[in-house]
Structures are given as structure tokens and as C-alpha cells.
């Protein structure tokens, strides 16, 4: 049996694996994750991982019929805090809430008591009954460790009320036990609409646009009430279910057969390159980085050659070879036994957005749905134009100037600087449902950070060169708060309620933030959370250098001149972009 400390370290390592600086950390412990972690912990002998984990936690954290909270410090320097496994237990309890359980606190603690073998009574178990939720200190220490590791936390308090502190574990468990089977049923029922190889955007749009149609309370809530910052994580989790379906086998019955965490295919979108000197546009194959769990280097086969899949510092894959936007290609992948192909879906349109981590780069690529107020580039076949013009006529969508034909790709046009203008899409009958669904906004408000001077790390700005905060909202009243993450009980550094005369976007100066970690929270006038952004401020003298993701130099004889250094040339000494 693995010890509590072994589980503690293994869980932290498992969920941290593959995260790049600025990524959001989710401690999404469920049975599948525990089974996989258990496999790594006990290579030689079989392990009933879930049972082993539960016993290890009980042995460490239940003493004399009471919960004894673990330390928040690491056992040794460089290790995660000792509370990770216990917090994982709390998340597992949230995961085990039935899909139709409402979020009453008592239902949550019933599940937790089951895991801790402290059944017989209801409500908070002894040891967690002190006022102010003693387990919150563990969550705060966990979040601090995440921030110091360069990631962004996702666990947070809920609004004032009975679920204020149970929101911490609830926020980590996106899909509960039973949700995945129900979703799989929904996907199978919708096969005639979605097919078997819809891509990430299509599935995400389908999920969020039919929020009220789901039969289970939890999934409905997830689809309707997600804040903008959690859309991607939810879409990832939902797509993982879809991408893991074995259509030739009967539906999974929850016995662990399904491998929800590992879709068999990696998806690709487009990366647009525009040569301003010639006015020429090309599109490159752009693998999407949904998979963080891949432990080996991947290679993709193309024209008889094996091309490595490089991941950049910000987590995005490096674009590959030029392709036709028609799509409909699949390329074998080597290096991982479960992910075997890179699929470039056939589509009649592509929504391409700017790089949010480098908005000055000027590049557009398949990077997920645009945020409210964000302009994007729509590449589409000519037959999409009628639908687009209807949306424009109904003040739902607009773009800059006239659409531009793409000369090298007959029948395709670009609509540049598109922007969704309104949330009133219900009254419009779509002519092209897929295009309509993907353009339809998912949120009513969003936070953007514009300007300032970012470092090479995600969402990190230099002291003295902070961005402006831009709120885009379809509601006239909103509240914006800025808090120091390390001091959740302190007064917010900014707390403004804004009422606009018209739907607008409003630019706000951030207060003079010094080095540290901050969270910006946007809520509707009634307090309902809408979006959240984390921002890190660093000083110049703490600025870390970064290895360049692409290296330029000038060949000179048998050398390459890089700056002031003459480097002996290799065969492929010169890399230009990708």
C-alpha cells in the first residue's frame, strides 16, 4: 500500500505534468486519475488504486473519529505541500456527487464522510466544524504553491452562503461521476448532427448552446453558469468525453473501460501566415494543445517523413506545413500508444483569433472561441456569406470593410476584424447551424487586458508597465474587483460598480500594483460571477531570461553568426520560425 506522502507527491506531479508557466492548475481528482496515478506508484504489483488512496488518507487524516488536517508545508524542500492528497480527497467527494444532486452542502459532506469512513451522521465531520472552515487554509497554501510554481490557481471561495467554502473542491471537479456516461449518451443521440469526428470548436459550441436541454442538473449548471475563464477547461473536459467514444462498442457503463482522459486523436486547426510584402496568405497545420497528459515526445508522419511536434513556451504547438483550409486529412502520430493520429477536420469555415499571450504578434490561428469584445478573422467558403450577411443585418455580427478573396484557395474568403455585437441570437433562424452555433457568444461579459509590457510568461507584466483593464459587457451594470491573491480577506485594491448608459466597453486603470499575484473578478450587478483573470507583476531585477523558441542567424562560411558568436554550422543550423 502506498503511503499518504507517496500519494501526495504523485498527485501533485500528475496534475502538474505538462503545465507551462501561466497555465491554470486543476486538481481534478477522480477515479480514472487515481487509477492512472496508482499504476505509476505500483509498477510491480496490482493496486486497487482508489481503495488504496482512500485508506492512505484515512490513516493519515482521521484520528480518534476526527479529521486531522495535514500540514500545509512540504515535507521536504522542493516538494508540494503535504495537504495535496487531502484536498484531492475533497475533490473526489465533489466528483462523487450524483449528477442530479443539487449543490447543497449537506450532499457534499455526505460524500466526503463516505470516503473518510465517518458515516452515521451528516454535515461537516468532526475536525472540520470550527468556524470559518479550517480546510480553507489548506486551499490557500495549495494556491500559493501553484502561484510560486508559475501556474494559475483555479480553486476559490464561492459567494457568501452555505457553499462558500465547499466551492473550493467543487470548482475542481468539472464532470462528476455519471456525467461522462450521460454525456456520451447525448453525443450518441446527436450523432446524426455531430457525426463522429467533430472538432473541438464544434463540440464546445454544441455544448454551451444547448445548455438548457441537458437532463442533469450539474451539466446544465456547468453549461449555463460557467465564467468566461472556465470555458476552456469545461470544453476540454467535454471534448475529452466525445473524443474518447469508441463508436463501434456499446456505450460505456461506468466500469472503467472508457479511457476518458485520452482521446485517440489530436486535433489540428489553422495558423495563418500573411506576407505583407506580397499580400499573400498561407495557412499552416496547427496542432491543438489539449493534451497535457502525454508523457512522451510525439512525431507526426507527413509525406514519408517524421516531423516532431514542438511545443512552445506558452504551451502552443509550433505550426507545421502549409495546408488547404478544406481540411479532411489525418496523419499518423508516433510516440504515444493511445494518441495515434493528428486529425485535420474538414470544415467550411474557420474562426481564427489573435494570440492572447502576444497580441502584438499579428498572427491569427485556431485558438478557441473569441472572447466577448475580441475581434477575430473568419475564413470561410463563399456559401457561408449569406448566413453572415443575415447576422450583420440583424446587428449580431460585423466586420471591417469587404470580405477578401484568398487567391490561392479558390472559393474561400476572409472576413477580417469580425466582432460579435449582441447576445440576442434566439430570434434568428440559422441557415448554417454549425457556423451560427460557433459564432454565437457564450458569455455576456469578459475582461481583457490591453497594453503594458508583458514578460515571456503568460499573464505576467512588468512593474510600472501594467495593462489597462477593459470590461466588455452586454449588461449595463457590472462590478469589477482586484484582489491580492495572497490576502483573500484583505480589502480589494479596486472595487468598482459601473453602470453604463449604453452597452459598451470600459477601460479602467489598474491600481498601481507592485510585485505579486492578483486576481481580477468581474461580476454582474447582482453579484453573479462572469469572468476572472489572474495577473502576475514582476520587477525588472527579477526578470528571467528565456531561451528563444526560434533562432535566427546568418550563415557565414562554415559558421552561423548569432549576435557576436560564430557557431559551427549543423545541417539544420538555421531555423526560421517553423
Amino acid at each position, binding site marked *: 500500500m502506498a503511503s499518504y506522502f507517496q500519494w501526495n507527491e504523485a498527485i501533485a506531479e500528475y496534475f502538474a505534468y505538462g503545465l507551462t508557466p501561466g497555465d491554470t492548475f486543476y486538481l481534478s481528482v477522480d477515479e480514472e486519475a487515481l487509477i492512472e496515478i496508482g499504476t505509476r506508484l505500483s509498477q510491480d504489483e496490482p493496486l486497487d488504486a482508489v481503495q488504496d488512496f482512500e485508506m492512505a488518507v484515512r490513516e493519515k487524516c482521521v484520528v480518534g473519529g476526527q479529521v486531522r488536517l495535514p500540514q500545509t508545508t512540504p515535507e521536504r524542500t522542493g516538494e508540494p505541500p503535504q495537504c495535496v492528497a487531502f484536498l484531492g480527497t475533497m475533490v473526489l467527494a465533489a466528483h462523487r456527487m450524483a449528477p442530479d444532486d443539487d449543490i447543497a452542502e449537506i450532499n457534499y459532506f455526505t460524500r466526503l464522510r463516505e470516503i473518510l469512513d465517518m458515516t452515521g451522521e451528516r454535515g461537516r465531520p468532526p475536525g472540520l466544524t470550527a468556524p470559518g472552515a479550517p480546510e480553507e487554509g489548506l486551499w490557500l497554501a495549495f494556491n500559493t504553491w501553484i502561484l510560486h510554481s508559475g501556474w494559475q490557481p483555479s480553486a476559490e471561495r464561492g459567494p457568501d452562503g452555505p457553499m462558500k467554502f465547499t466551492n473550493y473542491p467543487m470548482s475542481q471537479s468539472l464532470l462528476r461521476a455519471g456525467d461522462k456516461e450521460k454525456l456520451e449518451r447525448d453525443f450518441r443521440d446527436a450523432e446524426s448532427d455531430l457525426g463522429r469526428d467533430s472538432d473541438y470548436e464544434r463540440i464546445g459550441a454544441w455544448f454551451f448552446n444547448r445548455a438548457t436541454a441537458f437532463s442533469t442538473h450539474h451539466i446544465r449548471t456547468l453549461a449555463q453558469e460557467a465564467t468566461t475563464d472556465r470555458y476552456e477547461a469545461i470544453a476540454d473536459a467535454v471534448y475529452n468525453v466525445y473524443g474518447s467514444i469508441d463508436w463501434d462498442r456499446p456505450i460505456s457503463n461506468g466500469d472503467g473501460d472508457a479511457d476518458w482522459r485520452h482521446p485517440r486523436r489530436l486535433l489540428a486547426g489553422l495558423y495563418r501566415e500573411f506576407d*505583407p*510584402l*506580397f*499580400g499573400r496568405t498561407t495557412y499552416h497545420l496547427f496542432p491543438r494543445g489539449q493534451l497535457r497528459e502525454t508523457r512522451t515526445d510525439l512525431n507526426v508522419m507527413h509525406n514519408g517523413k517524421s516531423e516532431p511536434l514542438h511545443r512552445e*513556451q506558452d504551451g502552443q504547438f509550433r505550426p507545421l506545413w502549409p495546408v488547404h483550409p478544406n481540411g479532411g486529412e489525418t496523419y499518423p502520430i508516433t510516440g504515444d500508444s493511445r494518441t495515434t493520429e493528428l486529425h485535420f477536420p474538414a470544415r467550411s469555415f474557420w474562426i481564427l483569433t489573435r494570440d492572447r499571450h*502576444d497580441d*502584438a*504578434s*499579428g*498572427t491569427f490561428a485556431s485558438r478557441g472561441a473569441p472572447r466577448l469584445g*475580441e*475581434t477575430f478573422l473568419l475564413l470561410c467558403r463563399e456559401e457561408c456569406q449569406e448566413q453572415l450577411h443575415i447576422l450583420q*443585418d440583424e*446587428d449580431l455580427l460585423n466586420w471591417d470593410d469587404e470580405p477578401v478573396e484568398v487567391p490561392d484557395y479558390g472559393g474561400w474568403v476572409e472576413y477580417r*476584424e469580425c*466582432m*460579435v*455585437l*449582441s447576445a*440576442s441570437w*434566439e*430570434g*434568428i433562424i440559422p441557415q448554417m447551424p454549425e457556423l451560427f452555433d460557433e459564432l454565437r457568444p457564450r458569455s455576456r461579459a469578459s475582461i481583457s487586458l490591453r*497594453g*503594458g*509590457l508583458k*514578460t*515571456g510568461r503568460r499573464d505576467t507584466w*512588468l512593474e510600472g*508597465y501594467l495593462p489597462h483593464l477593459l470590461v466588455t459587457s*452586454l449588461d449595463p451594470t457590472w462590478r469589477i474587483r482586484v484582489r491580492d491573491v495572497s490576502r483573500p480577506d484583505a480589502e480589494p485594491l479596486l472595487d468598482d460598480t459601473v453602470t453604463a448608459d*449604453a*452597452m*459598451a*466597453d470600459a477601460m479602467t486603470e489598474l491600481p498601481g500594483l507592485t510585485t505579486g499575484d492578483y486576481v481580477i473578478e468581474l461580476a454582474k450587478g447582482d453579484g453573479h460571477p462572469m469572468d476572472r483573470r489572474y495577473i502576475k507583476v514582476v520587477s*525588472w*531585477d*527579477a*526578470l*528571467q*531570461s*528565456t*531561451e*528563444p523558441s*526560434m*533562432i*535566427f542567424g*546568418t*550563415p*557565414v562560411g562554415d*559558421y552561423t*553568426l*548569432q*549576435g*557576436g*558568436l*560564430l*557557431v559551427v554550422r549543423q545541417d539544420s543550423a538555421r531555423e*526560421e*520560425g517553423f
Partner: protein
Amino acid sequence: MERRYFFALTVGRPQDVLQRIVGIVVNSGMASLIPLVKLERKARREFYVFLGVDSDESHIPGGLGDAFRQSGLWFDEDHPLEPSQIASMVQRQDIEIHGFHSLQYRSQASEDPGDPFEQSDGWQPRQASAESCSRFEYLLHWLSARGAGTWESFKQASEILGVSVDRQDARSALRRLSLLGHIDLADDGSRWSISPRALVRFPDNPSSGFLVGQRTEILLRQVGELGPLTQTLQPYYSGPPRIELDSGVPRDADCVAARGVVDAGVTSTRLADLLPDLDAWKDSLPSLSHVNTGLYDIEQWHGGDFQPCDTVYEQDGVYYGESGMYRLSLHGTRAGRALTLFFDESAQRWLRGDWYGLRFLAMEARQDGVEAIHDSNAGELLIPAARRWPLLYERALTLASGLLPGRAANPDWLSYPRIPLNLASTLCRKLNVDLSRE
């Protein structure tokens, strides 16, 4: 619940009518059911107004029909229209839309930062101060933290840090950082990467040297453990300061490497020996596979400026015209950037490269004599500013001292310090430059 439109034919000023409608809808709180209004834009006396409604009610919701009638607007509630029917009444381009729950459209396209190599616009250095060097140093630290990026991101950062105020300034900053060995550029200048950290030694005193490439405060502290660092401001404060390792402290390659800095040796001399002669350099430049001259407005560099030119053209796959430097601008409103190229008539090629390099080739093609003067006493090389060398060869000069050129006593000449005669001779010979001694 399909959107429908109730229409009315009315008179008056359209903006006044719109304001009446807006007032009624907003005050009633019905904006969620009445999301927009359309007006006939080029209205004369009478014009159509269309009220968009998202409601299952058969009439205007909220009983607002009465309110509209009282304000003089008689919407036909018996014959609601589908959205597509409006087009049969008013042309799309003649419709103005007002949304009650709409964001204001705003393009986020940024201005094209232009060709990063362009130098023909007569840019002159601005008044600068020692603080300018500090700003450059901050820019270098930022570039070091980013690692690599686009020309656009460079331009934006240089403006935020106050290094540049416009694209011309930014281009010049980009070139200077490349000359000093801090960054490298893609062939077309569209991307940059930070150069490796290195100690480049002086050709006239190889026991000491200066830092090039990536640097941050943290890196400087590490290197500072080797001994005192000396900062020298650039001429006219036109770049990040040169940081020199004190020659009094002995060090070797391993000691330097332990701090993550590669000992590059005397790069200027080595580079000068490796560089090809001018013809070979020209042959190494990337060329365009095809230039359809009919698509461009063409100008030729002549007499210090670009002049319209109609003597360069393509016919049956053959290019005709004089070898020289040309600027090509695509016809039409979506022309993109102007393209500066060197046309090599004898080789039938259009070459890309750094702007001063292409101009140098143009002077060579016209057999304009290019000269330089070596001042042995001062150890300086003087070059006419109007005959500036290609970037790669000029870098061999700047890497000899770690300093950008200043202006000589005659301001039409650039002065490069710490250039030994042999270095000057080697480079001048390769570029067919007449070198005289002073």
C-alpha cells in the same frame, strides 16, 4: 420564437424618430424583447422604420404599440415581417441599425508597422540623453525575457519603453541592436530572436571584452561575480550601454562559461576573415522566385531618393532594365507594404536584403566609387554616411568595439572606433572600397 419586424412609414428627421423610439423602448425596459431598430438611411420625406421583436406575442410587446402611436409612429401590427422581407422594401446598404443590446463595433487592427528594413524615409536621430541608454537597456532585458518575437511586438515594446516614438525610430532601434550583437533577424526582418550571451574580445586588446546577446539584471549579477563591469554609453545614447569586463581581472573561457556566457573570442577579426567578397555576398542573398512587374508601381533609388521608374519590366519571362535598387508597391487599396529589392539585371534576379546593403549594391552597380579612411592615430575607420555598408559587414566593425558609430568631425562621415588597420583592410578589400590612410 423567430424574430419579426413591425414596420411603420413615417416622416421627419430620422435621428429624431430614432431618439423617440429609443426613449420609449429603454424607459419601458423592453429592450430584451425589442433588440433593435432599423431605419431607412437615405430617407427623404417619408421613410420606413422597422422595429425588431424577439417575442411570441402577436403584437409589439409590453403594449408599446399605444406608446408609439401617441408619439406619432403607427407600426403595422397586423402584418409583421420576416427579416428577409425587409430587403424587398429597402436596399441593405440604405439601412441604418440601432441595437439596444449591442456593443459598439470597433476594429482592433493595428497599423501596419511597415518594412522593418526600410531606411529611405530620411529618419534622423532625435535629441537623446543618458536616460535613453537606460531605456535601451530595459528594452534589451525585455527582449531577453521574451526570447523571440515579431517585428510588431518589438515595435510595440520599444514605444512603450520610450525607446521609439514611431516606426522609423523602431526600425533604427532594431538595426542598432542587431549591429551590437544583441538580436538576430529573419531574412525579411519580420521576426527577431535574442542572441546568445557571449563575451566578445577587442581586436586591439584581446584580454578584455564586452558582453553581447541576452542580458537581464540577474545575468549581470552573475557575470559581475567575475569582476567589475564597466558601462560605456553609446554615441548619442543610441543604444544599450556597452558592458565591458575589466581587463585587469584575468579570466578564461571556462570561468566565463560557468556564468552562462560563451567566450566568443575576437569575433570582428574572425568574421572579417570569413565574410565573402561583395559578389559572393550578393549571390548569397535570398532572391524572389518571380516578380510580376505589372502588379507594382516601381521606383528606383537615384540621387538620394526613390524616383518613379517605368524602365524596368518583365516580358516573356525576361526582365529588362538597369541593375539597381528599386521599391515596388502593389497596386490597389490593399497593397500591403512596399518592397525594396535589388535588381541584378545580368543574373536576372530580384534580391532581398538589408536596406543599406541593397543601396551599397546599387552604388556598386553604378560604379560609384566607395571610399573609406583609416585614422591610424585614433584607430578609427571613417565611412561616408551615404555609403553605409551592408549590415553584416558593418557588424564586423561594431563588434570590434561594442559601440555604434559616431559622427566624425565632418558630420557626413561615420566614425567606427577601435578598428585595427588589418581589420579595415580586410573588409575594404572584400567590399571593393578604396581605403586611404590618414
